[in-house]
């Protein structure tokens, strides 16, 4: 395997290495296959998932187009079709397929796609929230208490059924909350895409960009928090 030389090479050399066919040393004009010797080329580990699948960094993606691209590249890279090829090509096929599969899995889901984009653009890992979002603080505290009461209440007792009704209504409220957050996220996605499409480099545009990313991050982590609470609720009251 030759790709660990990439990480110690500088960015310029890395670019060089990428543009040369590993097999015939010719400059690769083709996207995934060498134009001269038709050998499969390794997808660079530094390639982001959007580029890998041939999509711009936008948050709205046509699912059918994405799937079609995934199938097309699966046909190009899958190890099934490299059984009669050299060991080097088999290794590339395996690596490319694994990369493609994770790329597709990430981009297929709108939330994972946004989290991934946030990671690319703002360069930070997913934030895991341990405390409730400020505007939900009181509500969540009360809910935790009710949940504890419910868990300790006797089976089929009156308290249990009363608490169940209460929890069910809490659950409905929280699910609505989650839907609201997702609607806000959708708006932010559109804002992001519009901003990118305009391609401005003004200070105004930069400020806007940072604001959208910040709001998106907050929204995503709040949504995950609420979603976990809803799941917990659902598994407790069934």
């Amino acid at each position, binding site marked *: *395997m030759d790709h*660990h*030389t990439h*990480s*110690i090479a500088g960015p310029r050399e890395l670019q060089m290495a990428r543009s040369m066919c590993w097999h015939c040393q010719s400059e690769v004009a083709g996207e995934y296959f060498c134009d001269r010797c038709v050998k499969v080329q390794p997808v660079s580990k530094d390639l982001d998932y959007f580029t890998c699948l041939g999509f711009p960094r936008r948050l709205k993606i046509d699912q059918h187009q994405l799937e079609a691209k995934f*199938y097309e590249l*699966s*046909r190009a890279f*899958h*190890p*099934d*079709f490299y*059984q*009669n090829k050299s060991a080097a090509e088999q290794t590339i096929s*395996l*690596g490319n*397929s*694994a*990369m493609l*599969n*994770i790329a*597709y*899995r990430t981009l297929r889901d709108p939330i994972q796609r946004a989290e991934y984009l946030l990671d690319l653009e703002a360069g930070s890992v997913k934030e895991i929230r341990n405390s409730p979002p400020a505007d939900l603080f009181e509500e969540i505290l009360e809910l935790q208490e009710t949940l504890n009461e419910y868990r300790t209440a006797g089976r089929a007792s009156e308290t249990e059924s009363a608490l169940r009704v209460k929890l069910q209504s809490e659950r409905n409220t929280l699910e609505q909350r989650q839907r609201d957050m997702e609607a806000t996220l959708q708006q932010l996605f559109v804002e992001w895409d519009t901003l990118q499409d305009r391609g401005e480099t003004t200070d105004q545009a930069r400020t806007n960009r940072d604001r959208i990313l910040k709001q998106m991050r907050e929204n995503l982590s709040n949504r995950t928090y609420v979603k976990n609470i809803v799941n917990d609720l659902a598994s407790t009251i069934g």
Partner: protein
Amino acid sequence: MARIVGIDLGTTNSLVAYMADGCPRVIPGRNERTMVPSVVAMTDNGLIVGDPAKEHLTRNPERTVYSVKRFMGKGLEDVQGELAYFPYHLTEQGGVIRIKLGEKTYSPPQISAMILKELKQRAEAHLGENISKAVITVPAYFNDSQRQATKDAGMIAGLDVLRIINEPTAASLAYGLQQKTQGTIAVYDLGGGTFDISILKLKNGIFEVLATNGDTHLGGDDFDRQIADLFVTEIRAHHGLDLNAYPDHMQGVRLEAERAKIRLSDELKTTAILDLPESKGRYSRDLTRDQLESLTMELVERTLEPCRLALKDAGLTSRDIDEVVLVGGSTRMPLVRQRVQALFGKEPHCELNPDEVVALGAAVQADILSGGTTDLLLLDVTPLSLGIETMGGVMSSLIRRNTTIPASAKEMFTTYVDGQTGVDIHILQGERELVKDNRSLARFRLKVPPLPAGVPRIEVTFLIDANGILNVSARDVRTGDTQSLAVKPSYGLSDDEVERMIGESFKFAADDLKARQLIEARTEAETIIMATEKAIKQGAQLVGKEDLSSIRASMAAVEAAKSGTDHKAIRAKMADLEKATHHLAEVLMDTSLKEALENKKLSELTSKK
């Protein structure tokens, strides 16, 4: 490229198939049957496999192994609950179950290898060429250890296992090829020992698995047990006999239970009959389909929850399923069909023989790998989440279940203490929070250069290949050096042990072949002697004394050679005998022809009356 065959290595039966002119075909044996019972018996004359071994189940239960697939990739503690059901002796060595047969012990992959060899020979005899490459199917819900054990079995049998594929997806390939289906399908696969459900999306030749679930310890065997338990209880109550003390009779009960179950798929009522030991006479009992269904209802219900979970993971409801396909012999049970139909709200497909469809699909996959088919592509998933142990005995997931394979994940490791030279890594598979509730796959120690705490950076890549088998590699990010890892499987054979078994297998193969040829020659010699004796009785008066004495001398020579161990000598003497009986045979043929003609005339006369 050399031909690749497709093999269904089943709990109860195994099959081998190949692709002929774009159409997969199952290879029949000399007895014209396509299924080889997955049974291996140790006899005084050596190991035998398949139909002849099945006869030893009741004759020689302690030395006849069946359902070995249940033990693949497992330790003894995994099967504690059902040890009493197996008449052969199980032990454990190095985390791997061992089966004691006579003086020797065998690992489950070695026993499976014997079945694979039988299939290999069958294919070689049928196709007239050497077979060394195969695709072997496994239950979709098999974990890494069980898959690895299957691959080991292939290697021990002298097969290059080019791909391990999942049984329900193999079945979908066979169906898809036949019907050019598009849309979302559910494959419900209930075999002899395992249950799988897979949800797939079929579009333009791509078979994309969306989700899979199952139970690797639920199948026809368990249904048989319910019935067998009923018989044993009743025999105890009515005849005062505990059959558990008679392993041969316990096998008889098990087989009769299986036969009754099979009959009840077509009939509403059947009678089970068993001869009892200790001159206690016979046990005879009517069993109705209703009774069978109440005995097995709970087991059938147990298959439905995995179906619901798979739908949920695929983000679908039963209404989204366009077609339901039934696979595995146990889906012949009307109750199973009813429950599946009720769950999905659709009449399930069962056009293809549910016993053969998996082998057919394996042959299709073999054809894809050999480059024969390029328009079909199977994108399968890993059935279980893969992770590593972290602080506090918690599992941290790296590759989620139902991720399309090949799949990889990278994890960076560093040290907590200055000068620390190693990091222990424990790999797990499963869906639970705590390490102890998941399946331990393997452990290894990462070598780290002695540096201040937190400075070393070792990147470990966990890669699940297209077989669903894990490969681990590590790289020091600072130096770029890769390191080889000595991964110790928790429930598997070590590489050295597999190597040794392959060697032994080749050594024994020569002995086995000799033993087999001897047995065959002896059997045929017996047949020819019996036939000759019969011929002498019929036609001694038709030939001269000289002829008769030369026949007798040749018979004696065959008898003498038969007590020796040289199969070639036996065959040579048999050829002599055939020459000696040539004249007698001709004379007899003429007489019987005449008689036949006369009989014919006679019958014509009588029919005219």
